[in-house]
């Protein structure tokens, strides 16, 4: 193999855009102020920079700058939103509805809420990865205070019908929270139009730096409040104490500004490349399946199962050169395959055979061509090694085989 390195794991994290890096640099040494220092120019310029970033972010999501609370990342934002609402609205109710396909930052937070006396419904999605709105409405109870539905799934890229969910929440007087980590900066979205009341997102998934995120908290119709989860100096309108990460926030703001400028161009280019990747692999190889509906999906993501090939083994054929991720159990410490794919009704065998390709702003057409070639070779190699591929080719019904579980 050559020394080429192709990065198709942009749903894990994105490279920081060089324009973002340039904007951040002066805030490390030349302008080192604490945004909470009110009595000298160092503090003033830091505060000014933070406020400007707040405006850039608000513009990206259709919010008011005062509705942006800076955090350390989407995980913290999810924690603050869910635990914060649960505590603040305890008198109104204790029931939360979410999805089985949510990120662990939401699911594990909900588990903690349950331990604290909360009641959580984990709705199943349909086979295409989408929520059934009728089932969601049926799950709403008089004590429901919050519905938390992710905007776009990290593993499959499936986008939920946010506007319809927002309408349901409004109709029933329930707060609507969304983990929009994978969507913000990638597709157009407007929190007011969608009826979202709380929204978590992060810089490092949109070509900004790691370690800085935000929670949008609606201030009007309704005015939402969350109980702080971090005690200290009362920063961020009392909702999140802690000295602001000024360079990170400046970078986050710049990333938002670039996203708004480049979104249309990036989306058009990436969806074309993604489609090319998908079509070429499906033309070159038999028994390739798309996980999650192609009808409502992020433009840069595809999740494919290569039947009778184990994902981690497949990745080993090319991972010196190409970065992707797999839903195979072997890539996780738990030895369980992806719970997201299983929630879509996929058998464990197809979940073990899945690869997620997530393209990004810096992905080139050559990267895609190279990946198609490497994957085609890799899958063929692994199938030559696979006893179940041989059995499948001989026409043996694999479901009728008595497997020895271990």
């Amino acid at each position, binding site marked *: 193999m050559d020394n080429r390195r192709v990065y198709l794991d942009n749903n894990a994290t994105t490279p920081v855009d060089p324009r973002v890096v340039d904007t951040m640099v002066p805030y490390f040494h030349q302008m080192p102020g604490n945004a909470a220092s009110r009595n000298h120019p160092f503090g003033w310029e830091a505060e000014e920079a933070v406020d400007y970033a707040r405006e850039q972010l608000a513009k990206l999501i259709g919010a008011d700058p005062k509705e942006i609370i800076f955090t350390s990342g989407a995980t913290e934002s999810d924690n603050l939103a869910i635990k914060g609402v649960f505590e603040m609205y305890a008198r109104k109710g204790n029931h939360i509805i979410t999805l089985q396909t949510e990120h662990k930052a939401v699911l594990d937070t909900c588990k903690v809420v349950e331990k604290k006396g909360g009641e959580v419904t984990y709705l199943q999605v349909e086979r295409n990865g989408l929520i059934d709105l009728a089932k969601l409405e049926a799950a709403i109870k008089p004590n429901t205070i919050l519905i938390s539905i992710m905007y776009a799934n990290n593993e499959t890229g499936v986008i939920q019908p946010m506007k319809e969910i927002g309408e349901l929440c409004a109709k029933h007087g329930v707060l609507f929270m969304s983990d929009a980590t994978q969507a913000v900066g990638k597709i157009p979205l407007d929190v007011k139009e969608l009826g979202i009341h709380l929204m978590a997102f992060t810089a490092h998934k949109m070509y900004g730096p790691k370690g800085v995120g935000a929670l949008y908290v609606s201030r009007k119709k309704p005015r939402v409040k969350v109980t702080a989860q971090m005690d200290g100096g009362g920063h961020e309108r009392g909702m999140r104490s802690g000295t602001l990460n000024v360079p990170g926030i400046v970078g986050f703001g710049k990333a938002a500004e670039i996203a708004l400028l480049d979104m249309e161009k990036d989306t058009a280019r990436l969806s074309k490349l993604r489609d090319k990747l998908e079509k070429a692999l499906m033309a070159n190889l038999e028994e390739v399946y798309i996980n999650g509906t192609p009808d409502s999906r992020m433009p840069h993501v595809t999740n494919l199962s290569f039947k*009778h*090939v*184990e994902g*981690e*083994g497949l990745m*080993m054929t090319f991972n010196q050169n190409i970065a992707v991720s797999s839903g*195979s*159990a*072997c890539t996780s*410490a738990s*030895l369980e*395959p992806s719970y997201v794919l299983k929630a879509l009704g996929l*058998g*464990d*065998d197809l979940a*073990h055979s899945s690869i997620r390709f997530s393209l990004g702003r810096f992905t080139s057409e050559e990267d895609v061509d190279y990946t198609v070639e490497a994957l085609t070779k890799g899958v063929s190699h692994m199938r*030559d*090694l*696979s*006893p*179940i*591929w*041989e059995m499948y080719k001989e026409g043996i019904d*694999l479901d009728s*085989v008595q*497997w*020895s*579980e*271990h």
Partner: protein
Amino acid sequence: MAYSNKVLDHFKNPRNVGTLNKSDKSVGTGLVGAPECGDVMRLQIEVDESNVIKDAKFKTFGCGSAIASSSLATEWLKGKSIDEALAIDNMAIVEELALPPVKIHCSVLAEDAIKAAIKDYQVKNGLEVTVVEEAHH
């Protein structure tokens, strides 16, 4: 997780990949694991008149460590008597390939596959089954 050079070598250049005629009396076939668990190994041995394994082949659906474990097993099996083959312990595979703790089950599967192949051969030929299945999982 970084793989050892030996795992990478077996993965990139797997030894003895293939299929022996499973209906041949001199061939024993072991098929262990399950697709739902993410690994399936098929290991086959061909035994000559003097009770020596003269050929071994494998095919494995699984991660790099599973493929390396079965590849190594076929290498070790060739030229061994049935009794010697039965003495192969999964921990020897772990050591040789420097498998990390999360991959020990791959070596266990390889040992199971060896035993299943020998058992199949013995049953097929009306021999006394000398395979002792350990309760290690």
